[in-house]
């Protein structure tokens, strides 16, 4: 036929590359469901969140994006109906006690009385709590679900984002070092 012999090797070569990539992918232990984050090193979106109040009685002050100026903030989205939020509650409480860090919360799609009861029962570590009753604010932060936690630097930039509950290893290996780095 006279076609270059190399041509007949092409399918094998392509397949070898694809198979090697697939083997690498499988053995890397990479979790295909891990979600990417887009807002890292970008300024936090501008917003104003009303404070949590039950039947007209304010329970916590709200805050806006201006609040992030000149302080290191941990912003935590939570809700009383969210089981993993309870799982991470001790770690969130621990974060609130780290020197030089302000912990604020956004109560996401939650009835205020249920949120208040949850906080009363498990403790309220938040300096301020804004509400997002309709889920309008969440997409501004690129939220997938609750819980989700952001570390925001003194110039209002998002330094770290964590999807899902903050476990003890996440706290120790991810948040505390990042906070250290921000302090310097």
């Amino acid at each position, binding site marked *: 036929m*006279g*076609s270059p012999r190399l041509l007949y090797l092409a399918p094998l070569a392509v397949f070898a590359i694809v198979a090697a990539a697939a083997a690498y992918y499988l*053995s890397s*232990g990479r*979790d295909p*469901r*891990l*979600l*990417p*984050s*887009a*807002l890292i090193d*970008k300024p936090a*979106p501008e917003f104003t969140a009303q404070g949590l109040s039950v039947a007209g009685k304010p329970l916590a002050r709200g805050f806006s994006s201006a609040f992030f100026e000149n302080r290191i903030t941990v912003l935590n989205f939570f*809700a009383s*109906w*969210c*089981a*993993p939020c309870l799982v991470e509650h001790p770690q969130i409480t621990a974060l609130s006690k780290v020197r030089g860090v302000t912990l604020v919360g956004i109560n996401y*799609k939650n009835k205020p009385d249920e949120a208040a009861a949850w906080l009363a029962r498990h403790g309220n570590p938040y300096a301020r709590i804004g509400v997002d009753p309709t*889920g*309008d604010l*969440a*997409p*501004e*932060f*690129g*939220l*997938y*679900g*609750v*819980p989700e936690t952001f570390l925001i630097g003194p110039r209002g930039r998002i330094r770290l984002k964590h*999807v*899902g*509950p903050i476990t003890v290893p996440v706290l120790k290996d991810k948040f505390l070092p990042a906070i250290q780095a921000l302090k310097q």
Partner: protein
Amino acid sequence: MRRRAVLPILLLALIFSSGSPPFRAQAIEPGEALKDAGLEERARDIGRQLRCLVCQNQSIDDSDAPLARDLRRLVRKRLVAGDTDREAIAYIHTRYGDFVLLRPPVDERTWLLWFGPAAALFVALLFLLWRLRRSRAAPPVEALSAESAARADALLREGGDER
């Protein structure tokens, strides 16, 4: 390796099973649509181009996940505020990253994706043209030679008689 992979999956399953509000919604709910039919049409078209991030291969227009619903509302809010289609998509793109775009952006990572098949078609056409010119230059050969045809028939007959 197995244990390492299983744990995060379990955790994520936990989040997404319980991490959404305890009420279920339908894809495009009554009252969600904009009054302006033209604007709503645009919103639907945009919705079909954005991925429902917590679903499996569904657009926000198809999904009944609460996140999809929130994003549909956000798209409509942006359109009402006067965004163009491109601006509304960009607004969500900056917040959720490339993963949200069902039409992947054209950049150096995706050149192969976007242009690879077209390039393959082009190369194949060139190859065929080259073969054609060469075979024209050579004297034509009767493709199904009498010998080959006879052999084929002999084989077929032989096999047939075997039964």
